[in-house]
């Protein structure tokens, strides 16, 4: 377990401070950031607006104008102190419990035009598409962060036998629901958008629905297991076509 002093705190704007925890990707370190995020939401400091998590950092966003009104001359100094306080309080045995995580079973069709890069990934690893599918469905992936586009979950970490670099030239249009690989990460495109990930399948589930209260299917800390379906099942379940 990393010590408290391994947290590196630095401002990125007049309205945001990042708390970095380690330079490598590690699930235990990420879970400490999730705990810390809970602390900020349960015990909000004056001017707090938002927080967001990445692989190895948590950033808190605040409203400097609000803090000026409260008489603070340096909102950054004030928030830095509030962060320090919470880091000290939430240390050792006093750590709060991890937020509830959800386990998701996600159907994916790895066939035909829905998997335009599956053969390329298989060739890259000198194996058959079947073994790529099997490996992709053989274990739970951890959701580290949501970014890039609303609802886009970055999951991992893929073993070397599955990992593959992004495409040199991004595809202009990746359909919604496409499941891709980029380096040691796997993820699902929530909307049709340009993208550089290697697309090995497509899920019929809608992972981001802005009209819904619980709009985003995934949250950091969740776990995901993919399960293969055929194209008929895909058509039957397709939420992108039949919203």
């Amino acid at each position, binding site marked *: 377990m990393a010590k408290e002093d391994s947290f590196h705190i630095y401002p990125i704007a007049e309205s945001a401070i990042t708390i970095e925890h380690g330079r490598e990707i590690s699930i235990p370190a990420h879970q400490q950031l999730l705990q810390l995020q809970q602390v900020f939401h349960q015990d909000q400091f004056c001017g707090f607006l938002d927080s*967001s998590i*990445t692989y190895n950092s948590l950033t808190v966003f605040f409203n*400097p104008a609000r803090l000026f009104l409260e008489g603070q*001359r340096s*909102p950054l100094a004030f928030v830095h102190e509030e962060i320090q306080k919470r880091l000290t309080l939430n240390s050792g045995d006093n750590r709060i419990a991890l937020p509830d995580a959800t386990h998701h079973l996600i159907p994916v069709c790895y066939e035909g035009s829905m998997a335009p890069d599956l053969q390329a990934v298989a060739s890259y690893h000198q194996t058959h598409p079947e073994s790529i599918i099997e490996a992709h469905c053989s274990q739970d992936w951890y959701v580290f962060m949501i970014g890039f586009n*609303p609802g886009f979950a970055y999951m991992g970490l893929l073993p070397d036998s599955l990992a593959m670099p992004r495409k040199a030239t991004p595809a202009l249009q990746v359909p919604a629901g496409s499941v891709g690989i980029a380096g040691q990460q796997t993820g699902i495109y929530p909307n049709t958008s340009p993208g550089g990930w290697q697309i090995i399948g497509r899920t019929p589930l809608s992972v981001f629905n802005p009209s819904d209260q619980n709009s985003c299917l995934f949250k950091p800390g969740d776990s995901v297991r993919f399960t293969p379906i055929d194209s008929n099942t895909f058509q039957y379940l397709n939420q992108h076509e039949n919203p």
Partner: protein
Amino acid sequence: MRILKTGISTIQDQGRFGHRNQGIPTSGCMDSLASRIGNLLVGNEDSAACLEVSNGAFSASFGRTSLVALTGKGYEGFVSGRPVAYWQPFLVKEGEFLQLFPREVGFAYLSIHGGIRTKPQFDSRSTHLPSKIGGLNGKVLQPGDHLPVSHFPEQDGQHIMHYLSKLSGQVRLSPAITPNYAQQEIRFFPGPEYTWFTEESRLLLEQTGFQLGLASNRMGFRLQGPQLEREGSGELLSQPVLPGTMQVSPDGQILLLMADAQTTGGYPRIGQVAAVDIHLAAQKPPGSTINFKKIALSDAETLLFEREKQLLQLKRDYYLYFS
């Protein structure tokens, strides 16, 4: 209020917070200072939603007498043929038309007393076009759209409307408070990966002009300038980015992120534009030149403090004037 003609116009407020963990960007007005001043002029809170007008002529008809202000830049405004000035409140009477004709590239803001009351989505009325969130069905405004506005003026609004309805009633802000859009210099402070770049590149950043690319939009501006080189070749794990972040793409060019910027990015952040200057950068037309000037983050914070103090004072004086 009914839209008759529009280029690319959207409903925006001061942005969306509380949902970055789902990858939902801030959005909001590109020129937030102009929209805040506009809200102030018509007796609104900062958080009221307004219209951001760009890329083409705009006209709308008003179903009832409304208190309106035009701020920002880029357009010439008329109410039933009478010219209206920027940075001052005016009345559009029941049945009258408000027209905006484009004169240069820029974002103009129409603030209406009571604000535009579309249904907030994720705690904001701001339109984010790429994910179809907020505004009116997440889309750009279309001719024929009806915008819900408040029917009951509040006290400050009533006072201002009463004053303006008198024949000689005019009020105009001092140019000291309104933005100087001609300013080429944009202040920034070093970003977390500033030291990843060679000393020569860091000098170039301040000594060369950077030209705004043509493919600029609400997400960000691509700048053209000398290639900025890195000391090493380490990869950055995706980190948070926000409006004003200066990312450097692998080809050594600056991407200056704007209101609709994605929430995270993997390119090194060489700098962050000072909050007090983001609105000036946002109003730069394609092809224009930006000169970056490095300041300390503590100075950026002090400048912001001064700006907020000035706005607060203006708000007090302005409402006192009418009461």
